[in-house]
């Protein structure tokens, strides 16, 4: 499988790219490092949404899993004192995955706007519970301050940065292999014609359930990673519908063309927002909205479509 992965051009270049990024992180100013880290963390969730989007589904409720992941990390630290990043990260994925697996039985029967809105409803239930429950921090949430790696208590964020990069590489590789497999290939087919897929002999509900589970795990991982990177969880930044909306926003801004796109898009978004915020603290939404419109107009394929051409050209040059 490792060989199969290395044979894939996208994965090969992504691994190299991420490796360089990890190395560069050593030299980057902290604020850049932070923004990249936030972007990468969100990129994980966006990668999950990309898997869904390729099959024509858009979820307005993935903040549910994002939030579950983030809260898993925060609660684990607060109530058990466990701080190891692998444990935290694993817990985030596990909790989100379990929830996604269960809700998947319901959501796999929905499509289009109804899928989107039912997801939203579920996520808002979690939001409501969090806001109500003081033990869960209500709207204030918690801080997530410590992390350790196999007992080592590092200083600064650089090790965490490397960890998140590692997580991204693993996620990206797995998703790319999945998308290229027969099962992943079904993605577009289902969007185009479910009836035919059924008649070919595959259960559409099952295929969607699998995708949903993948996206839930990735969103959980993203929430967990962001909670650690940011040091803070709270319902409004992790579970509210605006968070889901933002993830969808980045997904489309990035483009569905490649598994690398979500990470690029999320990082771009992070910087766009940082600068918009800096330049126009009273009108930053205007800048973000304007950029959004511009992207939709001039790059309907997302940011990826800018990179796609040189990328495709390489392909023909090489082979």
């Amino acid at each position: 499988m490792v060989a199969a992965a290395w044979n894939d051009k996208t994965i090969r270049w992504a691994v190299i790219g991420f490796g360089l990024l990890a190395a560069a992180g050593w030299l980057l100013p902290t604020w850049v490092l932070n923004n990249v880290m936030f972007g990468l963390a969100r990129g994980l969730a966006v990668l999950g949404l990309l898997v869904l989007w390729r099959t024509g589904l858009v979820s307005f409720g993935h903040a549910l899993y994002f939030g579950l992941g983030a809260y898993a990390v925060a609660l684990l630290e607060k109530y058990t004192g466990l701080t190891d990043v692998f444990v935290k990260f694993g817990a985030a994925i596990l909790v989100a995955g379990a929830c996604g697996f269960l809700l998947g039985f319901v959501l796999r029967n929905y499509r289009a706007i109804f899928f989107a809105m039912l997801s939203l409803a579920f996520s808002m239930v979690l939001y409501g519970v969090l806001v109500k429950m003081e033990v869960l921090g209500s709207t204030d949430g918690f801080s997530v301050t410590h992390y350790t790696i196999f007992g080592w208590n590092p200083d600064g964020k650089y090790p965490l940065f490397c960890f998140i990069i590692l997580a991204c590489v693993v996620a990206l590789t797995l998703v790319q292999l999945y998308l290229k497999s027969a099962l992943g290939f079904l993605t577009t087919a289902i969007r185009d014609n479910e009836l035919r897929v059924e008649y070919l002999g595959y259960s559409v509900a099952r295929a969607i359930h699998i995708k949903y589970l993948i996206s839930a795990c990735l969103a959980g991982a993203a929430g967990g990673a962001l909670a650690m990177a940011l040091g803070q969880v709270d319902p409004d930044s992790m579970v509210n519908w605006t968070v889901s909306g933002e993830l969808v926003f980045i997904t489309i801004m990035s483009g569905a063309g490649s598994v690398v796109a979500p990470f690029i898009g999320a990082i771009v978004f992070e910087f766009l927002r940082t600068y918009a915020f800096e330049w126009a603290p009273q009108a930053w939404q205007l800048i973000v909205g304007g950029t959004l419109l511009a992207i939709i107009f001039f790059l309907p394929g997302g940011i990826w479509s800018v990179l796609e051409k040189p990328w495709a050209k390489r392909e023909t040059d090489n082979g």
Partner: protein
Amino acid sequence: KDTINVGIASFLTGPAAGPFGVPGRNGAELVIDAINAGTLPAPYAKAGFAGAKMNAIFIDEAGGNAKQVGEYRNLVEKRGVDAVLGYISSGTCMAVTPVAEELKKLTILSVCGTPRVFEEAQRTYVFRTQAHAVGDSIAAAHYVLDKFKDMKGYTGINQNYAWGQDSYKFFDVAMKKMAPDTNASDNPQFPKIFAGQYGTEISTLSLDPAKLVHTSFWGGDIEAFVLQALVRGFFNDKQVISSVGGSAVDSLGKKFPDGVVMGTRGEYGLLVRNNKEPLNAWFVEEYKKRYDAYPLGPSYQYANSVLALKIAMDAAAEKAGSFPNQEQTMAALKGLSWQSFGGKISLSLADGHQAVHPVGYGITKWDKEKGAATAVDVKFYQPECIYAPAGQNSVEWLEAGMPGAKC
């Protein structure tokens, strides 16, 4: 050094901008300009912050705690500010505090009220020039019991988020401790924040036998509530006590009903509008001149944070004999006690990081002749009466019946 860069966070967009963020920023801006120019009244007439001019970088507090954590990092790590001031939302204060500690950056919180900031851990780099919210609710209970002894029970309408939940909880506990035989309603209302439509809630409150209604609504929510309740004759029937609805008194003007108990979380705003104490008079005067409105609570709160920084830096400079570094400034700030634009403030809790000051309430009254809102029957409660002694957890202290309170 002749300039310092200071990040100042307050809501510049969204629903909290009008009632809190912009008045707060204006208060800061007014005072910063005056300090830079050396035009503050005595004893603060000396120009600058230890002689340096402050370059304020205003940022928007909207967008949620997580985003603010990121923005805080950007302020410190990217824009290299010398200190950070401000913050209105309790959640955001909770969120940026650990980051401030991590980044070791002097941060002065201006408005937020949750006691948890300093009671969950000892802070080194974070200060708050505003007293915490437990005192607001205790003072409210005192005022109610002083003025409306024979009211029949109480209920509340508060927004469904930490601030609203805490405010009512503190008020409820304080009432239960101070007047165990008053009836607490079993159906207090917690509508969603920014819901805007309160028809159903007003019906519920009307049907409730309780006469007194506590609310920590602010901004558009209190304004909408007042408008909707007003047509329904709600205020004829119920006594409303509002802890932070001050902005509505001015925005609604003569439409705002008389007889509402109104607090400002300190010696600020409406309650001290006609107070002739020179610093306050200067502040009200200049603010009105520049922004064509009365300063609200947050205007004072931000101005006080700025002033505290100036006092500390000046003192530190004097002591060090040179431009003070962050440690020196913090040492001077710790435990500081100063005459602010609204009364005296002392950083006497949490090892000199958390402020206490009197908190008062008054009753709204429209002054026809002046065409302005006023407060009558204003009464302030002293810190010894409403805050837990240093080192104690204030919620536990409140629940224990406020032992040792001197009122």
